[in-house]
């Protein structure tokens, strides 16, 4: 149901006035609150032991961003070589693992299907962070492989489940038609069913990759030098007064990358047609509710 204009009438003069008034009020409230918060942040503060700290918009709190080494540490070392490198490798591996798990989960042999189901349930129920710790402590790897391994297993399990849901949602006739043409069961699955399921689920898979990207920030906890850890190191090096400015820069960097990926997911959903978009809307919360970590 599109909620846009079924639930209420086209606004008459009274409703339009009400809408306008409340919009203006809300805008004033929001902008006012935001401005107040910004102003408050800009005020100098006196600490308990009497030293006066400059406001957060004071140039003294932002001057490190004049140095190219700070940007290089944050964006090149942290974002590209840290976050994106781990996320990129984990995304590729998770896709491969997801496809494998999807086939194993729908295999004709029960001896493959049932263990896969148990493994999937097991991995979907665990926090990524615990998996990272497990890989790091039990297998004695460094933070990078712990992060990539945990993200691969977790997101692979979820992509596998999404693909399985995609296979299950296909019309039965697709498989029957494939079999009736004389294709084997495997060939039908590979050539007829899987390509359709994959296209249908592509928006969900991309949305899951956004989750994967966000989850790389968990590697902060296992001391993998991604962007948040780099920001923390910079804070320790330059001093606490840059905590806020570094946070703002990291947040903006994350938002830009994530919004770009989300926009890609929406674009893919539109391109694969309204059916896929509806699937994204509802399935998103069905299969992905578990995913959003």
């Amino acid at each position: 149901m599109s909620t846009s204009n079924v639930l209420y009438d086209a606004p008459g003069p009274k409703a339009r006035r009400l809408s306008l008034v409340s919009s203006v009020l809300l805008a004033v409230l929001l902008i006012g609150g935001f401005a107040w918060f910004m102003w408050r942040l800009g005020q100098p503060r006196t600490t308990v032991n009497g030293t006066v700290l400059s406001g957060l918009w004071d140039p003294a709190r932002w001057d490190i961003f004049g140095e190219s080494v700070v940007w290089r540490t944050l964006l090149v070392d942290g974002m590209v070589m840290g976050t994106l490198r781990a996320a990129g490798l984990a995304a590729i591996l998770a896709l491969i693992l997801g496809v494998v798990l999807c086939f194993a989960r729908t295999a004709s042999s029960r001896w493959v299907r049932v263990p896969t189901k148990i493994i999937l349930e097991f991995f979907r129920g665990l926090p990524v962070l615990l998996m990272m710790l497990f890989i790091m402590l039990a297998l004695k790897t460094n933070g990078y492989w712990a992060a990539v391994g945990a993200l691969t297993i977790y997101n692979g399990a979820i992509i596998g489940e999404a693909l399985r849901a995609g296979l299950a949602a296909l019309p039965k006739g697709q498989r029957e038609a494939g079999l009736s043409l004389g294709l084997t069961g495997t060939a039908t699955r590979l050539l007829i069913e899987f390509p359709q399921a994959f296209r249908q689920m592509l928006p969900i898979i991309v949305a899951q990759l956004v989750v994967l990207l966000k989850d790389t920030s968990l590697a902060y906890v296992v001391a993998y030098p991604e962007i948040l850890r780099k920001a923390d190191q910079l804070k320790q090096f330059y001093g606490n007064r840059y905590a806020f400015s570094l946070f703002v820069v990291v947040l903006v960097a994350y938002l830009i990358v994530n919004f770009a990926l989300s926009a890609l997911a929406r674009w893919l959903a539109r391109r694969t047609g309204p059916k896929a978009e509806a699937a994204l809307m509802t399935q998103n919360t069905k299969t992905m509710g578990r995913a959003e970590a």
Partner: protein
Amino acid sequence: MEAVLSNLDQYWLGFKVTLELLVVGGIGALLLGIVIALLRISPIASLRAVATGYTELLRNTPLTLVFFFMLIVLPSLDIKFPNPKIGAFIALALYTSAFVAEAIRSGINGVPVGQAEAARSVGLTFGQTVRLIIMPQAIRMVIPPLINVFIALTKNTSVAAGFTIVELVAISKSLANANGNAVVPILLGIAVCYLIITIPLGQLAGWMERKAMVQR
């Protein structure tokens, strides 16, 4: 195994905190999420815009950053919580509320248009349509995805471990350090604690989904 059994009290300590984070964060997220979802379907465009902005912002921010803001940035601005746990509750509730709102909205979108049209055509107002016709049908479809959101929340409570809150993952770290020769059983014990919460919830979601499907 021995290392697990001799530390059961530690496990229980962590389990209680995880459960606490789940319950308090979950209730906060549910209340906030319902408000956001209602704003998103309201007739007033500006309310819709605010709610959309809120969900998009929080859905695209890593939870670690929300925690970072609550427990590291705010204290450095002299906004301190009496207990870091309160900051964790707020971070979890804020982050999860965006997903709760999305789940509820997708449930509302799942109600066939004809239902709203019929309600409007017999003269019900916006409030009556939502309250009497849409919501009772939407809630049924919303519960399974909502349970999934709470499963995700259960797993997300682990992020608190990075911010001085002693829940299951933090316990696992300290236990693993103390018992270097029994790391695997200790971590498996922690895994079981999580599965105790997540697997029954998952089964419940699946069961409710099947029930809802039969009725439609």
